[in-house]
């Protein structure tokens, strides 16, 4: 079942599309244009802004990103800095909040507040790079498959059917095992516990969902009059692809990108939780590692180690999910119309 929020959510919507559930992305956009005489882009923007939760989420997310990007300024301590110099002979481990540290300290005497900022930095980077990689690969494959159709399309659909239905953790763990055991891969991807390895691993899995989404979009677009017209005028496939199909899919690509970010962040957390994530011994951290550590903090009742990373993680994924939701409504105005 759906144990992976981000990724499964995208796949679910794609499955709906695949099965013919009408989430026709652009089908009725023309009606909107006629009614309001606004450009589709402005329409979409307006719809997005009207989606209040998405708007608030965007503001929150931008704040988080700015905050996290300025880590050395905003964090009070280094990611791996013990704040044990405060008083001699006083243990600095597992301090409750508001003592020496705003969010308390961990089992090694490190400031949790600073670590969440640095952890979010790593997680967001993983999410962003994975999403960009997945979307590029997915758009390429999905675009070609959707446009060309035929056996390529068939294979894509069959392969992704199976991959997307398998539990994500299983796929990740097996692919990780494969990549780890091939020496030349390791030279490209780095050690299995490195961030680079993780990003590539998640991209290898993540593109499939995107590909299906783009394929569906392209398949619909290519039946449309303007594409037909272009073809009739003798435009090459390449030109149609890049001048007509892709620009008209930008909205969908943006939606896919958003959900890919949150999917990758969740996947990183899952892998870390089960000990397949980045290396904590190097002193760095990620949201997944912080959540993994929070499990150990449950029995002794170090609530701050559980609550702060967990809540931050939920807020972050919620923001991105809301933005994705808003974007989807924006590019898929049908639902929105019904609400009026």
């Amino acid at each position, binding site marked *: *079942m*759906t*144990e992976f*929020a*981000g990724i*499964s*959510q995208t796949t*679910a919507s794609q*499955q*709906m599309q695949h*099965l*013919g*559930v*009408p*989430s026709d992305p652009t089908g009725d956009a023309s009606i909107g244009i006629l009614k309001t005489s606004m450009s589709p882009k402005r329409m979409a923007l307006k719809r997005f802004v009207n989606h209040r*939760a998405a708007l608030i989420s965007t503001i929150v997310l931008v704040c988080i990103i700015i905050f996290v990007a300025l880590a050395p300024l905003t964090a009070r301590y280094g990611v791996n800095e013990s704040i044990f110099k405060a008083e001699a002979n006083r243990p600095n481990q597992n301090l409750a909040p508001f003592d020496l540290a705003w969010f308390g300290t961990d089992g090694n005497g490190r400031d949790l507040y600073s670590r969440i900022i640095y952890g979010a930095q790593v997680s967001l980077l993983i999410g962003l790079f994975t999403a960009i990689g997945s979307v590029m690969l997915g758009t390429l494959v999905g675009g070609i498959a959707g446009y060309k159709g035929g056996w390529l399309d068939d294979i894509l659909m*069959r392969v992704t*059917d*199976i991959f997307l*239905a*398998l*539990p994500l*953790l*299983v796929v990740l*763990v*097996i*692919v*990780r*095992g*494969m990549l*780890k*055991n*091939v020496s030349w891969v390791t030279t490209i991807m780095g050690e299995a516990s490195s961030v680079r390895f993780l990003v590539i691993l998640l991209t290898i899995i993540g593109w499939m969902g995107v590909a299906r989404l783009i394929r569906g979009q392209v398949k619909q677009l290519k039946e449309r009059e303007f594409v037909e017209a272009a073809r009739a005028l003798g435009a090459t496939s390449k030109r149609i692809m890049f001048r007509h199909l892709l620009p008209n899919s930008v909205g969908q690509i943006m939606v896919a990108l958003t959900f890919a970010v949150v999917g990758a962040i*969740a996947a990183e*957390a*899952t892998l870390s*939780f*089960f000990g397949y994530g980045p290396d904590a011994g190097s002193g760095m951290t990620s949201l997944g590692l912080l*959540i993994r550590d*929070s*499990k150990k903090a*449950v*029995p002794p009742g170090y609530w701050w180690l*559980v609550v702060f990373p*967990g809540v931050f*993680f*939920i807020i972050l*994924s*919620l923001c991105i*999910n*809301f933005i994705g*939701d808003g974007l989807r409504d924006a590019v898929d105005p049908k*639902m929105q119309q*019904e*609400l*009026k």
Partner: protein
Amino acid sequence: MLRFIVRRLLWAIPTLFIVTFVVYCALRLATNPLASYARANPRIAKQPEKMAQYIEENGLWPGIGGYIRGYFVWLKGFVTGNWQVSIKGSRPVWPNLKDALINTLRLGLMASLVGISIGLALGIFAALKPGRLRDTAVNTGALIGFSIQPFISAVLLQLFFAVQWSKWFGEPLLPTSGMYPPGHTGFDPVLMLKYMILPVIVVSIQTIAAYSRYMRASLLDVLNSDYLRTARSKGISERRVLVKHALRNAMVPIVTLAALDVGAIVGGLIISEAIFEYPGMGMFFLTAEANGDFPELMPWMVIVTSSVILFNLLADLAYAWLDPRIRLD
């Protein structure tokens, strides 16, 4: 219709072969069965003739040709019921795998039942008054549900119902882990349900979130379709419209989606099982993977992928059957 079914069935067979071959290659690469075997049995590993014999018996030759030959050796053993034994202790794989499968089906079907039914109810509830408070609440709730990863909710639930509860009230309300209390033998549905509650909640959060959104979208779509408008304009009561036409049609994609999800249950509710130590397919996989136990992982993957393929097929058939609009060429 019949032709469609036959064609899809015929497709499923080569798919199965190709998939099992790919899985075979992937697992051999990922687990390195020979090295894992040597690690688990270091004394045998020191005897080249014994290792050679192990390679021959299990078809673990290197190279592309070796993989292909090895696949057929494995396939023959698998089909004839002559399964390879676990690398550690040379135990037969099936008895444990069977138990794991049954346990997971119990938990998974229960969780799906709870999750899907609540999800559908919420979805209908939201779709009936689109744009109103209830719709926003369900929608937002679903997104929040998506954002709560199972490992976060599982840890918090354990903390609350077992550990904290016993601190406050002397004894825990719900058990933290396992399938039965320690020392219990045999089947006991009441105890079994009690031990299932927390894992089911964890899985359900995500399921409810997903299905409430599916149902809402699907129902809204149907309610706004032309034929329902026609029905309404004919003066058929809203209630009748809803029950007689809208819900039925809205369920079409939901049923197919549910079929896909049920097919994936066999793969285990890996996160919940691991945290609640529920001895199902997910735990089986994690343990076998940690040992690099190829002979245990391979049948596991075959069962899981077959189930996925089978239910994909069923989903397609169900869709074709339920939705008369689909063209069966």
